[in-house]
């Protein structure tokens, strides 16, 4: 596609439920990144994929968070047993090559009630 696409744009869930957030990167981009933007913590890195592999998962805040990427394209970020502190905007970015210009999607706003 023309840009990074994220779905849904908004997600409201109840505490304790699982959620899946989807990211479609720019066609041909080999690298994919997830970030979280929250009022208290600013913009934080979560995980990085090169192809289908995740060489850097250092930003995942707990084992309730996981992500996968299939076919070197679409990625899904899963949050299990959501907590109120998981409420944030989850941003996905993709890049091509080692110059690391990352292009961002519009994000998914997650609200945990």
């Amino acid at each position, binding site marked *: 596609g023309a840009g*990074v696409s994220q779905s849904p744009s908004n997600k409201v869930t109840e505490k304790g439920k699982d959620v899946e957030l989807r990211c479609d990167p720019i066609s041909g981009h080999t*690298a994919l*990144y997830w*970030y979280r933007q929250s009022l208290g913590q*600013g*913009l934080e*890195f979560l995980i*990085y994929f090169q192809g289908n592999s995740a*060489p*850097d998962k*250092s*930003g995942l805040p707990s084992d309730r968070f996981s992500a996968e990427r299939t076919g070197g394209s679409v990625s899904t970020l899963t949050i299990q047993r959501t907590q109120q502190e998981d409420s944030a905007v989850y*941003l996905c*970015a993709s*890049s091509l090559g080692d*110059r*690391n*210009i*990352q*292009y*961002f*999607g*519009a*994000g998914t706003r997650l609200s945990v009630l």
Partner: protein
Amino acid sequence: AQSVTQPDIHITVSEGASLELRCNYSYGATPYLFWYVQSPGQGLQLLLKYFSGDTLVQGIKGFEAEFKRSQSSFNLRKPSVHWSDAAEYFCAVVLKEYGNKLVFGAGTILRVKS
């Protein structure tokens, strides 16, 4: 601690006035440097980047930034601000030794008054 600092949380400028947003980093090596802009409800848009070479870089929307190694700074400038520039601006770095992730400053919210 290694970090990216944007010392101004909010800045207000008059339309047509010049703008400078400050960014400092504290890393031993020179990282790749970026400025992104975020309008309300939107994702991040890349304004400009610095990898190497000429220390004055031009970006989109009339923005420029200057890398100063001696000051570990990468300040963003615009000679004449437009009302549509009101947004939040983020300075970010990539330090290849720490992988490809972007490390962001806290952001500066720009308000433009007419």
